[in-house]
């Protein structure tokens, strides 16, 4: 899931200050903590109050979209409403913000979230942790199920570094476990220190160069379908 953090209300209000009527779109996709209809409504109420303190009567409508990062779902859900509003605020992650701007080019869509990382829920509700950084070159098979790229502040392939103290990392004040110590513990437990000792050469950063573009399912995209329809 994509972990997001709400932006400061001042910043959000700054985006919509020139407008009087806005659409606020939640996202029911993988965004966490939840950024759905209720959260969209709450944000609308907050912005309305904020506008009132500035002597403005802000009109808003809250909706939610199944997945804003899916172009067809985003377009079909929001397009029928969009003409009635001057601008759109989205509670989705960065993917949703960009996709909404793409499929609804007639209006500006503004973000309300900072997208933090691809994360997992850990140790109870609203505790999220980055376990994978989608680097495009997975080595977790050699590291006992612990990712040294997402888990190590220095992204080391051959750790630990000298910043490890009592098994903890120098970054964040020794509160986060050193990924390389975790890897060592796991591999030792399974008598696989041969994997720990292995030297790993330099990373090929072409696998994670932005913008990422993957054509695995090219034959199934709507572009292909359209071509076939034309042919037919």
């Amino acid at each position: 899931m994509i972990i997001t953090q709400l932006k400061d209300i001042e910043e959000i209000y700054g985006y919509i200050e020139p407008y009087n009527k806005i659409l606020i779109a939640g996202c029911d996709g993988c965004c966490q903590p939840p950024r759905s209809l209720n959260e969209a409504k709450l944000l609308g109420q907050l912005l309305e109050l904020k506008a009132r303190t500035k002597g403005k009567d802000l009109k808003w409508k809250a909706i939610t979209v199944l997945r804003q990062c899916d172009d067809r779902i985003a377009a079909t859900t929001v397009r029928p409403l969009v003409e009635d509003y001057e601008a759109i605020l989205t509670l989705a992650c960065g993917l949703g913000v960009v996709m909404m701007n793409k499929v609804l080019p007639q209006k500006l869509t503004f973000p309300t979230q900072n997208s933090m990382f691809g994360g997992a829920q850990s140790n109870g509700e609203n505790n999220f942790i980055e376990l994978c950084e989608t680097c495009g070159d997975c080595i977790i098979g050699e590291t006992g199920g612990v990712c040294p790229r997402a888990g190590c502040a220095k992204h080391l392939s051959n750790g630990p570094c000298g910043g490890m103290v009592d098994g903890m990392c120098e970054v964040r004040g020794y509160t986060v476990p050193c990924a390389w110590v975790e890897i060592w513990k796991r591999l030792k437990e399974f008598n696989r220190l041969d994997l720990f000792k292995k030297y790993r050469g330099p990373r090929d950063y072409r696998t994670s160069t932005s913008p990422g573009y993957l054509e695995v399912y090219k034959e199934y995209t709507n572009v292909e379908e359209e071509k076939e329809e034309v042919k037919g």
Partner: protein
Amino acid sequence: MGKRPAYSNLCKAIEAGKFVITGELEPKKILDLSEILHGAEEMKKTGKIVAANVTDGPQGDAYMCSLVPSYLVQEKVGLEAVWQVTVRDRNRVALFGDIIAGAVLGLKNILTLTGDHTALGDHKKGRPVYDIDSTQFCEMLSIMIDEGTDYEGNKIEGGKIEMNYGCVANPNSNPREPEILKVGRKVEQKVDFIQTQTAFDIDEAKDFLKDLEQFNVPVLLGIFPLKSYGIAWYFDNYIPGVSVPKELLKALKKAEKDNKGNKPAKYAALDKINIEFFEPFIKEIKKSTKAAGIHCMAVEYERLFDPLLKDF
């Protein structure tokens, strides 16, 4: 270990079986290098210090890069530099460029380091690089020196890089096993020497040196004479994994308190504490371990060199 010639005085001295001592210089946020050069001169005068490490942004702070001071220490003072290079701030392209520049300037030793994270330094919002890690940096240097190409195999024209390089190891590491295994990976990448983080506990240091013996690479054990109570306190609190013995902290505090307002007496008292602690420490290392020498990180504490090192 594949035998690489000893290009540097440091490696030649190690090869000759001498008990080798290196010093340390720390260029900071300065334009005037006279203090650094003075420190290097004092080290040279002792006749005991074979080379001086020149640090590269310790604690992640934005300081003068280590290349130019390393060159000037060699050029103006005639003391060999151990050029510290971290992988924190430069990607493989920049590292390559710097290394061949250093080779042209006549630098002979490189100490490879990961580098403290920018989160610890004075530019906390900065993006650290870590394109390659320090082990991969060792591999890159091995390829540059032994094969005469860049990391991708493209030939370096116009001569041969004649340098030796080392890596670091941390005797304070807890747990120790992953640290030792990591050093093993670096040794596989053909390091010529190892310099360690500072040690205060003699038994722990000896035990650590014993663990490193399997690699058959010369080790210089790090020591850090404590110029003042303030520095000792900072070191104890802010340097990852290093704790200064409580009795040493107490003694330094007392020496400063008892001699308040009398600088010469204060200096004498502080020096006495350091000599009483480190002289037997070095003797014990020399006598009962296979360490090739000592890396003495007495930064801006040149007056201690003569009295401390007179017997080595």
